[in-house]
Structures are given as structure tokens and as C-alpha cells.
């Protein structure tokens, strides 16, 4: 038999249109075999490939599941395959009618991978795509998937700011992709691309699949938004069958797992003497001596601030349907009380999805989600002395005799403190600050699918993603900002923000089989999106009565600087296309192209993003047959370009500002119109050029799977503030000028090690290495970017991080500590002063006080005899060398156990807490009264205790040094989940389909050298300042008990 194929394929790039103009098919056959393919529920299946095994003959089933094939006598076996179903081989045995039912595939290579606009079988993937094991992830008792995503998929790094309930971690895919702009991935939620969604909007239990698109061959189809990777989420939809009710509920406790040890009252009093002199130590008055404090137990403010929190979650889902209609209804309630007083998180969510067949060819459906989040409790680290833990650590544990009668725990201020000492009772102030963040989210999608012809499907989808956010801030008389130390009186501000994203997507999908071996899937589509952003705020001071709360804002004095009115929008219009071709499941070629038009740009309004991928499935080659050890082997090579369009909506335009006021002869003349920025009509998106080489190996019928990926992403046209010569009238402007690159390797290993009736053990391991490098900055190049973290005004101009050209981004920058200046470094002059010996390097950074014995000593790198700015160097890595996760599932009879470890290795953290509370410059500021400190401060340098590395009181500079840089590597038991599934037989008596009870825990064990509360921390986080910890919200250990119930 011979088949003759003529085809003519035309791919029009400019309009992203692919037209199949002519398909002709001729066959010459003897016997006709026909039949109907159905799924396991009996519905006809369209588009199933029916192929004659080992021969070049194939066809596809039509819309009623029917296929016709002409065969020759030598044809023995038919192979049925379709996305989402297990491939089936059926011997012909001389039959002319063969009706079969295909089983849906649960996992493995036939697993369907949702890639946003399209889906494919795992075995047909050409790009680098990570699939999140949702079953595992859902075992973590968390309110958002983002909290549990770290370590689940190779290449995904989760940078978590702290442990506050409702806080949103930053997700990086294959490293930091931008210097100044947002590096977060694009989300595609049920087919709708959304930048920066509220991840708390989605109940993790309601997620059906989650896929991470890592390389540009998968993300280029998202064009100007794909450079930072794409996370594709589909939520649960209805399934045909009788109604099923699923319930997941848990209740548990959150516990702090670490405290900083503070000085005992005895040591505290001794410290006060050291600082102020014993004669003016208020604790040594009224006949008290130091020894009297030996066994006194003081107030532990840290302990009072922390509490045992609770986690309470109920998720319910009801779904079902028939041949024509399927539905799914879900609801979720979660309430977490944080481990700091007054910080809670509450979510209510409801979701409805409905899919309806209309006639034979059409299907309509939609989905509507409503979420309301409420986060309470202030930011624990607003900076400097305002930070919550500053008060908690330094507040005096005991009263001096003269103040013994004051109930300090009930007073907002410590009466013992001088005026100008702004420390507040952390318990009272924090619990009185109203900081409510209310997010209301509506996400609605409606679609129409229409099967135009066999293999040709048109889909149109419209959606709205709408978020209403209200921030309520109110400071009553018992707070820092509204109390007696504030000139503002009782004050409050309400901010309303709304963001509406309207989208429309149209897709035309085609797939066909030409001859037996040419599989073609093609898609073209358009996207339209409009984003409207509005923010309005009003605030007032001197509100007459605090009992009014925020409703008293109109009774106070409305302040201009607390008012805000922002109105902005952007639009995006796109056309895209993608072709997947494979020859006999052996040789794969994929190409995609997208054109994006964005209102954010002027001259470069349109961007074009191509990609291509090839794959060779070696295991299908003849030379692989005849052995059963290696069951799957692929080599994949991809190339693509994707963009990052996260710039302001009108950043290209010159801005006129009205902030400066002109006074003449004592009176205000008016606001000046200041031309603040230079227009940059050439502004464009940042482009990431990505190359990926991947290897997949499956062993022993794919019980063991190994994937190794190598990638090199070169990101160019990065937006960076480039200096201008002064003659332009400006000192800098934002230009697409910098570039950086990310290179890395990812290894994922999965194994079903044991699979018995009573016992099974499977394990999944992944590790990701990423190295980034700043390639270029401005023109001419600056040496690098210094990044300041403004956690304390004295450090407001001290760079904490450096990103040097040729080096990685976000490295910690400062001095190398060399212990302390000791007496032997000095010559003692007859008048009693100490002068450094000639060979010992002095210090410019500490000048003004001279360098006394006991001061911190730094390495004189350039050897000029002076410690200056030139002696600063890289003293730590802000980003890890590798991160990863290891998930293990055990099942013994009805018991199941999931143990998930997550780690990060090679990253360092600036523990700024220790700069202040353990001997840095800031410890014991002279303008504050007695301050408590960390317990290690006992060992500070004194003339009698010189063998130490903790400096003498108040003799250091405001610098970062290796002393405060700690290894942030950790490995932690992130999720632990032990369950028991009641026997089905027993349950069916109660009409229960399934019941499982479980104990789940988060962050149960952490191994780290980091001395702070938690190594997963990044206060004041930005891409260039990833690792500083100051007064962060501690991350809790969560232990819960729950049930999964299916009715």
C-alpha cells in the first residue's frame, strides 16, 4: 500500500496567520475497517488517532467518534491514541468493525499538560515545562499555593518576605529577570493571562493543575509578558457523573519556633552601668545593688508579643453533570490567626463553573469566582525604632526603684524614659494600630467552543478580573503615629484601589494527521486586554474622638499629603500562532510566534516574539527496541524570545510635576510646573533570549524518570536609569540599556520505588542551579549598582548590596571583619590616649571618634593603612547556589504519608537585628535611655573582657561587615502529612465514598545556621536587595488535623 500525500503549508508571520490551503489525500486499499471510539463513560471521542502499528497508515475519528481505515492483510494491530487517554493497541483479528473504549490516563507520559492556550501530552512536550504535583502540594496546610510552591518544581524559587499571614511571596522562575522592573511570572488562570494576580484569591484545594512554563519555546506565545516564565493554573471543573461532594477541613495551631535570647535583668542592669556609668544607673538607686538583680525575672516582651495562632480551613466542592452539562461549585473559608498578636488572615471564597453542550458542535461555559480577603495587623518592620521588634527587644525588662510602682505592661510609654526616647510598649501600640487590608476579587470567564470541522475548533473567551482593595489605617492615641509623641493627633487614612482587567481571547485550533506519521497541531489566536487602575485615598489628622475609628476621618483635618488620586490604564492587542509537528512520535518540531501591541510604548509599540523547538525521541528509534531498561529517551533543544512589559503605563511620556512651591516676599505664589522627566518615546519591553537543552530519560517502563535541563537566558534591553550629562538638564533617564543573563541546570528525578498492594513508596526530587550575571548597565558602563536598604536612617546611604558588571546580582557588600582593635594594636601615650601602631590600619569610616581599643576592625583590602570605602567588597551572596525539594509519598495499607523537604543552599542574609541588638553601631544610641539587647551581648568587649569579637559599646560605624552576614542555607521539613483512609466498604454503609483523616504540618523541622527567626526571610525585598532581615515577622510552625471527605 502506498499513500501519497501532498500538502502545502503556508505560515504567514506578519499577521501570525497560518493557512492550510490544500490538503489532498489519496488512498488505495483493499479492506475497510470501521468503528467508533468512546471514552470510558461511553461518550464518543473525536480526534483519536488510529494508526496501523509498524505501518505508515493512520486516520482520525470524526465528531461522532467514527473512523474508517483501509487496510492490507499484513496489517495486524491498530493503535488508538488521544490526548488525555491511555494509548491502546487492538489486534484486528480480521474484524471489519472495531468499537473500543479508551481509558483516561491518570499520569505518566500520557498525562495532559495544560500550557495555557493549548495542551499537549507530556510525552509530546518540546519545551521546558514543570508540572506541579497538586496532590502533594495540597497536603500543605497553607492559604495560598505560592506559600507551598518552593521546591516543588525545578527552576522555581520562592522568595518569601516573612511569615505574616496573608503575605505574598515573590516567585522567580530561572532567576531574576529584571533589574528595575517586576520579575514575577505571568499567570494564566483558566486560560486568561493576568499579570500580578492576588495569589490568595485561589484556594489551593480548588486547583486542578498547575504547570510552570520555564523556557521561551513555551512562553514566547505569551510574548511581551512571557520573559519571566508563566504559571498556568486550571481550577476544578465539573465532571460527568453523579454529584460528588468533596470536603476538606482542618484545624490547627501556629507556633513560633524560635526566640531571640535577650539579656537577663541582671545583665541588663550591668549593661546600663557600662553605658551610662554606675553612678548614673537608675537601677542602682534606692539602695539597690547589682547583685539584687541576680535572680530577678523580668518581663519578656518578645513572649508577650507572640502567641499561639490557629489555622482553620473549610473547603467544599460539589460537582457533577451529564453528557451535556457539567458543573462545579466550591466554597472556602480560611481563618489564620498569626503568631503575633493582632495579625490575622481571613478569606471567604465562592466559585461556580458550568459547561454546557449546545447542539453537536458547540459548547459554552463559564466560571465565576468571588474572594474576599482580610489581612489585619501592621507591618512589623516599617524601619528603625518604629519597627515592632525594636521595642520588643529593647524595652526594659524591669523597672528602676524610682519607677517600681508603674505598671509598665499597662502603660503605652515607659515613664522611666527621657523625652525624645520614642520607644513604645510594643503590645499596646501594635494591638491598637488598625491596619486592615481588604481585597475583594471577582474573576469571571465565559467561553464558546465551536467545532467547525474535524480537527478544527474555534474558541472565544471573554473574562474580567477585578480587584477592589481597601487599606484602612487608623492610629488612635495608643499608637506610635497617633499618640502623644506624634504631632498629628489621632489620624487615619483610607485608600481604595481598583484594578480591572478585561480580556478577550480567540483561538482557532487545528490538528490533523497527514498520512500515518505526520501529526500536525496548529493554532492561531488573538488577545485583547485592557487594564484600568484607579486609586483614591483620603486621610485626616487631629481627629477629635478616636472612638469614631476610620469613620472619623471626615471629622479631622483632611491633609493633602494623605490624599491620592491615580487613574491610569493600558491596553494590549496581540496575535499569535503555534505549530507542533511530529513525525511518528519520533521527531518533533515546534514553532510559535507572537506579535504584541502595547499602549505602554510609543515608537516600539509592536513587539515580535518567535520561538522554535526540536525534539528527538530516541527511544522510538529501532536501535532502542529490544531492551526494556530504558523506556523513554528524549533530547530537546529550544530557542525563543519573550518580553517583560512591566513598565508604567505612561513611562514613555515626559511628566510635569506640581510639587515645588514658590514663595515670594513671604507668601505662596503658587505651585511650579516642573518638567521632571525626559520623554523616552523609544522605550520598549525587556527581551529575554532563551536557550534550553533538555534530556528526558525513563527507565523500567517509566517507573524512574530523570529530566535534566540546561538553560541560558540572555535578557537584553533591560530598563535602567542611565546617567545623562548635566547639559541635558537631567541627570538620568530610564532607557532600555542594561543586560543580564541567567544560566543554570535543573535536575528532576521521580521514582515509583515500590508499588505493591499494601505498600508503595514514590519519591520526587529536584534541584536547580542558577547563576546570574550582570552583563551591561549604562553607556558607558557604570561599574555596578549599589542598593541601599532603608531599614534604619543611619544606613540610608550605606549600600547593602552590590551588583557588579560581570558578577551576580544582589551580592552583599561591606567590610571583612577582622575582630576588634585590641590594646596590643596601640601605643599608649603618656597622657593616657591610645594611638594606633604604625603598621595597624586606621579607619576613616570610624573617624570622628578615633578608633579606640574594642572597636570593630576591618580588613584593609587595598593596604593603604586606612579603612575607607575602597576596602568594601562582596561579603555574601544574596541568591542561593542551588535550591530544591524532595517529596516522598508512602502508603501502607490505608495509611499514607507525605514528607516534603525544601532547601536553599549558598545564600547569605544580613541579619540587621544583630547590628542593632548585638553590638553594632546602633546598639546603645545615646539619645535613648537604657536598652535591652540580645543575650550574646554579655560578651561585649570591656577592658577586662578583651577576648571577644563583640565590640565595645558605641564605638562602631554604620557599616555592613561579615560579622552580621550569616549563612542563610537551610533545609526544612516543609510539609508533613500523615493520613488514614477508611476502608471503602466500611464507608459505603454510610453513603460515604471516601474518608481520610490526617495530621499535617508546615515547617516542622528546620536545619540552618541562621541565627534569626527564620532563614526564609527578606525584609524590604527587591530583586537587587534580596536578603536582609530586620524586625521580620517570624515564620510559624503549623500543625493541623483534618479530614478529606467525599460523598
Amino acid at each position: 500500500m502506498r499513500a501519497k500525500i501532498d500538502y502545502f503549508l503556508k505560515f504567514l508571520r506578519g499577521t501570525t496567520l497560518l493557512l492550510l490551503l490544500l490538503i489532498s489525500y489519496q488512498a488505495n486499499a483493499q479492506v475497510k475497517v470501521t468503528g467508533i471510539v468512546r471514552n470510558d463513560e461511553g461518550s464518543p471521542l473525536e480526534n483519536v488517532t488510529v494508526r496501523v502499528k509498524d505501518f505508515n497508515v493512520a486516520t482520525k475519528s470524526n465528531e461522532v467518534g467514527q473512523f474508517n481505515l483501509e487496510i492490507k492483510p499484513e496489517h495486524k494491530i491498530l493503535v488508538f491514541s488521544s490526548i488525555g487517554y491511555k494509548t491502546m493497541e487492538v489486534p484486528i483479528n480480521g474484524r471489519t468493525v472495531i468499537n473500543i473504549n479508551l481509558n483516561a490516563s491518570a499520569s505518566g507520559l500520557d498525562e495532559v499538560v495544560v500550557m495555557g492556550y493549548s495542551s499537549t501530552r507530556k510525552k509530546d512536550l518540546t519545551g521546558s515545562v514543570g508540572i506541579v504535583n497538586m496532590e502533594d502540594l495540597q497536603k500543605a496546610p497553607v492559604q495560598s499555593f505560592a506559600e507551598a510552591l518552593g521546591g516543588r518544581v525545578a527552576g522555581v524559587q520562592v522568595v518569601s518576605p516573612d511569615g505574616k499571614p496573608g503575605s505574598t511571596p515573590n516567585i522567580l522562575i530561572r532567576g531574576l529577570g529584571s533589574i528595575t522592573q517586576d520579575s514575577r511570572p505571568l499567570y494564566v488562570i483558566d486560560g486568561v493571562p493576568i499579570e500580578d494576580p492576588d495569589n490568595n484569591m485561589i484556594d489551593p484545594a480548588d486547583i486542578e493543575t498547575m504547570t510552570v512554563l520555564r523556557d521561551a519555546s513555551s512562553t514566547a506565545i505569551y510574548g511581551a509578558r512571557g520573559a519571566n516564565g508563566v504559571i498556568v493554573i486550571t481550577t476544578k471543573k465539573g465532571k460527568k457523573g453523579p454529584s460528588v461532594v468533596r470536603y476538606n477541613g482542618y484545624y490547627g495551631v501556629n507556633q513560633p519556633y524560635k526566640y531571640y535570647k535577650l539579656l537577663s535583668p541582671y545583665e541588663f542592669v550591668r549593661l546600663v552601668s557600662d553605658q551610662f556609668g554606675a553612678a548614673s544607673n537608675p537601677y542602682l538607686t534606692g539602695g539597690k545593688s547589682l547583685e539584687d538583680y541576680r535572680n530577678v525575672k523580668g518581663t519578656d516582651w518578645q513572649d508577650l508579643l507572640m502567641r499561639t495562632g490557629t489555622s482553620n480551613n473549610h473547603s467544599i466542592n460539589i460537582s457533577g453533570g451529564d453528557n451535556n452539562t457539567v458543573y462545579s461549585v466550591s466554597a472556602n473559608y480560611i481563618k489564620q490567626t498569626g503568631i503575633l498578636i493582632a495579625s490575622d488572615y481571613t478569606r471567604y471564597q465562592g466559585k461556580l463553573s458550568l459547561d454546557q453542550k449546545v447542539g453537536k458542535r458547540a459548547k459554552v461555559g463559564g466560571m465565576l469566582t468571588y474572594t474576599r480577603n482580610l489581612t489585619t495587623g501592621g507591618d512589623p518592620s516599617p524601619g528603625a525604632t518604629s519597627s515592632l521588634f525594636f521595642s520588643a527587644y529593647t524595652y526594659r525588662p524591669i523597672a528602676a526603684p524610682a519607677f517600681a510602682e508603674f505598671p509598665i505592661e499597662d502603660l503605652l510609654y515607659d515613664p522611666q524614659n527621657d523625652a525624645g526616647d520614642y520607644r513604645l510598649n510594643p503590645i499596646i501600640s501594635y494591638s491598637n494600630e488598625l491596619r486592615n487590608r481588604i481585597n475583594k476579587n471577582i474573576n469571571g470567564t465565559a467561553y464558546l467552543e465551536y467545532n467547525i470541522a474535524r480537527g478544527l475548533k474555534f474558541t472565544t473567551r471573554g473574562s474580567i478580573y477585578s480587584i477592589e482593595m481597601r487599606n484602612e489605617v487608623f492610629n488612635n492615641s495608643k499608637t506610635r503615629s497617633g499618640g502623644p509623641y506624634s504631632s498629628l493627633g489621632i489620624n487615619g487614612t483610607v485608600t481604595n484601589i481598583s484594578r480591572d482587567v478585561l480580556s478577550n481571547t480567540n483561538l482557532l485550533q487545528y490538528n490533523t494527521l497527514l498520512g500515518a506519521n505526520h501529526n500536525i497541531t496548529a493554532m492561531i489566536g488573538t488577545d485583547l486586554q485592557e487594564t484600568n487602575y484607579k486609586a483614591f485615598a483620603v486621610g485626616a489628622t487631629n481627629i477629635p474622638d478616636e472612638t469614631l475609628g476610620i469613620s472619623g476621618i471626615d471629622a479631622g483635618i483632611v491633609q493633602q499629603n494623605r490624599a491620592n488620586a491615580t487613574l491610569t490604564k493600558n491596553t494590549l492587542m496581540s496575535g499569535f500562532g503555534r505549530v507542533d509537528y511530529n513525525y511518528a512520535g519520533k521527531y518533533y518540531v515546534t514553532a510559535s510566534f507572537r506579535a504584541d501591541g502595547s499602549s505602554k510604548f510609543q515608537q516600539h509599540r509592536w513587539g515580535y516574539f518567535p520561538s522554535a523547538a526540536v525534539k528527538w525521541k530516541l527511544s522510538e528509534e529501532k536501535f532502542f527496541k529490544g531492551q526494556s531498561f530504558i523506556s523513554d529517551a528524549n533530547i530537546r533543544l529550544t530557542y525563543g524570545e519573550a518580553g517583560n512589559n512591566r513598565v508604567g503605563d505612561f513611562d514613555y511620556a515626559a511628566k510635569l510635576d506640581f510639587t515645588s512651591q514658590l514663595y515670594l516676599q513671604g507668601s505662596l505664589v503658587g505651585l511650579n510646573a516642573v518638567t521632571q522627566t525626559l520623554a523616552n518615546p523609544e522605550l520598549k519591553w525587556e527581551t529575554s533570549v532563551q536557550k534550553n537543552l533538555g534530556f528526558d530519560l525513563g527507565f523500567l517502563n517509566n517507573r524512574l524518570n530523570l529530566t535534566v535541563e540546561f538553560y541560558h537566558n540572555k535578557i537584553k534591553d533591560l530598563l535602567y536609569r542611565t546617567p545623562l550629562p548635566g547639559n541635558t538638564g537631567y541627570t538620568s533617564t530610564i532607557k532600555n540599556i542594561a543586560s543580564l543573563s541567567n544560566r543554570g541546570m535543573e535536575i528532576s528525578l521521580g521514582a515509583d520505588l515500590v508499588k505493591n498492594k499494601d505498600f508503595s513508596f514514590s519519591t520526587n526530587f529536584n534541584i536547580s542551579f542558577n547563576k546570574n550575571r550582570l552583563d551591561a548597565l549604562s553607556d558607558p558602563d557604570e561599574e555596578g549598582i549599589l542598593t541601599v536598604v532603608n531599614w534604619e536612617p543611619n544606613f540610608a546611604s550605606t549600600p547593602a548590596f552590590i551588583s557588579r558588571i560581570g558578577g551576580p546580582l544582589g551580592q552583599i557588600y561591606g567590610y571583612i571583619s577582622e575582630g576588634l582593635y585590641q590594646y596590643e594594636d596601640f601605643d599608649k601615650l603618656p597622657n593616657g590616649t591610645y594611638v594606633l601602631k604604625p603598621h595597624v590600619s586606621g579607619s576613616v569610616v570610624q573617624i570622628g571618634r578615633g578608633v579606640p581599643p574594642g572597636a570593630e576592625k576591618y580588613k584593609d583590602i587595598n593596604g593603604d593603612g586606612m579603612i575607607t570605602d575602597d576596602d568594601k567588597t562582596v561579603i555574601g551572596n544574596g541568591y542561593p547556589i542551588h535550591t530544591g525539594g524532595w517529596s516522598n509519598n508512602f502508603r501502607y495499607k490505608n495509611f499514607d504519608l507525605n514528607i516534603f523537604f525544601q532547601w536553599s543552599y549558598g545564600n547569605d542574609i544580613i541579619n540587621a537585628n544583630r547590628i542593632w541588638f548585638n553590638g553594632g553601631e546602633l546598639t546603645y544610641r545615646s539619645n535613648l535611655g537604657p536598652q535591652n539587647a540580645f543575650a550574646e551581648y554579655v560578651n561585649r568587649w570591656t577592658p577586662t573582657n578583651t577576648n571577644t569579637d563583640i565590640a565595645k559599646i558605641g564605638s562602631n560605624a554604620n557599616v555592613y561587615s561579615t560579622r552580621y552576614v550569616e549563612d542563610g542555607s537551610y533545609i526544612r521539613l516543609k510539609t508533613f502529612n500523615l493520613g488514614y483512609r477508611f476502608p471503602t466498604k466500611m464507608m459505603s454503609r454510610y453513603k460515604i465514598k471516601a474518608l481520610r483523616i490526617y495530621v499535617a504540618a508546615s515547617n516542622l523541622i528546620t536545619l540552618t545556621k541562621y541565627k534569626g527567626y527564620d532563614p526564609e526571610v527578606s525584609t524590604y525585598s527587591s530583586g537587587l536587595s534580596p536578603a536582609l532581615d530586620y524586625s521580620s515577622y517570624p515564620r510559624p510552625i503549623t500543625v493541623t488535623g483534618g479530614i478529606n471527605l467525599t460523598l
Partner: protein
Amino acid sequence: MNRLFITVSIFLLFICGGCKKILDTKPQDFLSPGTYFNKAEDATAALNAAWQMLTRKEMYGGTYQFRWLTTDDCFTALSAAFPANLGLDASNSQYTTRWNQMYQTIQYLNVVLANLPKVVMDETEKGVIRGEALFLRGFLYYELAKEWGAVPLRITPTESPNDVNIPGTPVAEIYAQVLKDLTEAETLVPTTASAMYGGAGYAARTTVQAMLARVCLSMTGYPLNDASKYQDAKDWAQKVVESHEHALNPDFTKVFINYAQGVIDKKESLWEIDFNYVPTYTAASGYIGYLDGIRQTNNAFGNSAGQYRVTRKLILSYGPYGDTKDLRRDWTCVPWFWKGNASTEDIEANKTYWGPTALYSRYFGKFRLYYCPETFTAAGQSPINWPMIRYSDVLLMLAEAENALNGPTPLAYNCINQVRERAWGKMLPGATDIEESHIPDGLSKEQFQEELQMERYRELAGEGLRKQDLIRWGIFISNVKGLLSDILDPTFPAEANRNATTSGQSYYSVLNLNKVSERDLLFPIPPAELQYNKMLKQNPGW
């Protein structure tokens, strides 16, 4: 197949139909220069932005005057790295700040001038705004050419971030542009008598004329040495005089008390930088009287850092120490200092007088905070205005130009003697023996010029004009170098000179000044400018 093509066609419509408009969004949240400039207020607000730049500390807010312009009249009595102390690197950020702010202001002005034509407003008023903008641009380029030499000349707004490479324009061409701007401005701005005249900070017609005289006189000296400009200088100065809008304030001290009190005396003061004390808006105030002034840090008489001191040479230029009738001396060179912990407002009781040999410690006293309406202002928030052009300057410029053209004519004598009469209190009620204040009759042209140079020294000391005077006369380096021998003069007790205050800082400051060299005739071009403007060259010696 038909169905397929219909669908594809519909699909194509989706892509191409009416799409262009969708991407054309307009900013709703802010204005840009292209959409602004519609009404008179817009133009005024944009011009005000430029006026306000002049009040920046490195522009004319005080830092520039008291930390940059040290010569042989006053010096910065602080060993810190200020331009005044010479010997800084070109990379010092202070140079960058002033350079950038100068051009920032010029950009504001260019934006105003470029957009003014489309503003719908009264044409005369529009002319005034154009005139003010041109005056200011002319003034700033004059300052730039004096301070930096051949600098980039921009007379249209910078519009593209790629428009960065501009070569230095030869000084003569910059002056040509300055004259063009100022002469046009002169025809557009109102007279001080006009209702449209806006006060101390605004340029009136005579202000522009006086500035033209100053520019022309500068052109006669180093580096252009264009003697033909004496006539223009004389003509412009004479126009000011003949406008009869100006006259000397009879009381020399009152001139400066007015600046402190916020009293505008248009007759004496042709142009001021207007500073204001606004408790909630520190940017409105300056450092005049704060960086300089009579040191006092506990606020009883206003908070002054007292960093600006007078030289012995200046003190003695008014005549022998014990025998001078020139009232300017003890106002300019304060013979006393505040007692420590001054706490009452009894001024006399809080004074401590310097000894007669302590001639290197005295504070520069033209701007005194204790005359301000609010003397208890916070540190560094001074409302004292800064004089840009005073009438005595105009008279002395006229005398200098006249002498250069025609020798010491009666006009030249008359001008200089007016200034001297006021200085000796001969314009005050009841003054007698007016002639004793006059300079000697019968001087030669050269002698007259010498006398005139000293008169400018005495009259305008500490007002930021001395350095440029010395440079255009070609005697800057020799004069500054001469200070060292002056302080080391063995006929005066050296220790008292150097060390009368605390640490002998005066001596070290003068020692700093001895580093003066050719390169100090110009400031260095900031490194960022050279780095990013590849067509500009660094000034010699830097």
C-alpha cells in the same frame, strides 16, 4: 470547507478590525509639556520653576556664595573640602551639583520659551514672560561662561535621551548668545514702575540693563579682552542711571537690614534672590546669614554657623585700623562676636569686642539674622534675600567704563564719589564735610582704575563679585597668593592673626588659598558630564 473559510475570515476581522485606536491611550493622571501650556497661568508656573531653582543652595542659596567664591575679601573658615578651599578633585560632587542645577534651570527656561508661542494669553504679558525667561537664560549662560569657560550651549529644550553629545561653545559665542537674550529681554520686561513688575526676584528693564553692563564689562577683560565693549557697558549703565528709577540708600547698613527684614528697596537693589521663612517648607529659605553671619548656635540672635570671615586686607582697606570714617568697615567686618550662651535679646550686652590685633578672626557681617522678623528660626532656615545687583555696583561699573573710554572725567568721579559719600555717612541727615569722603582729585587714568578697583573691593566685599572682578582684571592669582604674605606679615602679631579664635583655622584656610593656580580661573567640568558627553573637554589643569 466553506465554513472554515468563513470562520477564518471572521477571525481575520477580529485581528485587524479597528485595532489602532485601542492602543492609543492618553495619560489621565499627569500632564506633560506637550499637553500643558495652554493658558497664562501655565506659562507662569513653568517660569516660576526656573526662578525657584535660583534659591537652591548651590545656586544662589548661600552654599555657592560662602563655600565657593573665596578670594582676598572673605574666606571660608572651615578646612572641609569646599571649592573655596581649592585643591579639590574635579570629581567633587559639589561641582556636579551646581553644573546640573544650572542646566536644569536652563532646561526649564527652554521649555518655557519653546512652548510660549502656543499659550493663549495677552501678548504683552506673554512678552514679559518671554523677557523674564530670556533674561534668566542669558544670566545663567553668562555665569556658566565665567565659571566653566566653553560650555555646551542649549537654546532649545532637550527632548531625547540620546541628545547628549554637545561640544563646548567658544566663550565668545556664548557671550554673543547672552547679549542676544538680554537685549531682547530688555525690550520685553516692564519697568520697576510698571504694574506688571513682580517684585524683588523679577527682572525689570533696568535690571536687564545693569546685567548687560556687567556682561559687557566682563567682556572687556580676561579672557575675551574686547575693549570695544567698554562703550556698551557705559551705555547700558548710563541707561540705568538715566532712568532715574534708582538711587543709593543714604544708609549703607540699611541696605542690608532691608534684605534681612524683607523690605524691598527697589532704588538701591535692582535684583534679589528672594528667600522666605516658611516653617513647613524649608526649601523656601536660604543660607544667607546662616553659613556666614556672626556665629551663634543657640538661636537667641538667629542661628549662624559663622563660617565666612573677612581678611585683614579687607579690614585695612578702609583705612588705618584705629582711624577710619568708612562706615562700611564695621558693618562688613564685624568688630565683635556674640558671647557664649547669649540668651537675652539685649544685643549690646551680648557683644564681645575683638582686640585690635585680632584681624583674621572676624565674621563677615553684611547679613545679620538678628534683624530678621523671626530671629528664632531653625538652623539653616534664613529668610534673608541675596543681592544680585545693587545700584552702587552700577555706578562703579559706569565709572570704570567711562574711565577706560575717556579717562577720569567728572562723570567717572561723580559716580565713584556718590558711592563713597554714602559709605562715609555723608548722605545721612546732618552730615558735614562731604568732600572728605571723595577720592583725590587729579588722578591719572591708571590711578583712577586702581582706586576704582579698591572701591569695588570695599563696597561689594563678600557679595560674590570679587572673584570675577579679579579674574577679568587679570590679577586673581597674584591677589590670592598675596594673602599668605599678608597673614605672615611680621609687623602684626602672627599668633594673634592666626589663632585668635580657637584652632588657627584662619591660617590654614589662607594656606589653602595659596594653592591657587591657573586652573582655578575655571571650575572643573564634572566627570559625569565628560563621561556621558563625549564631545566636551576638561578645563586645563583639572
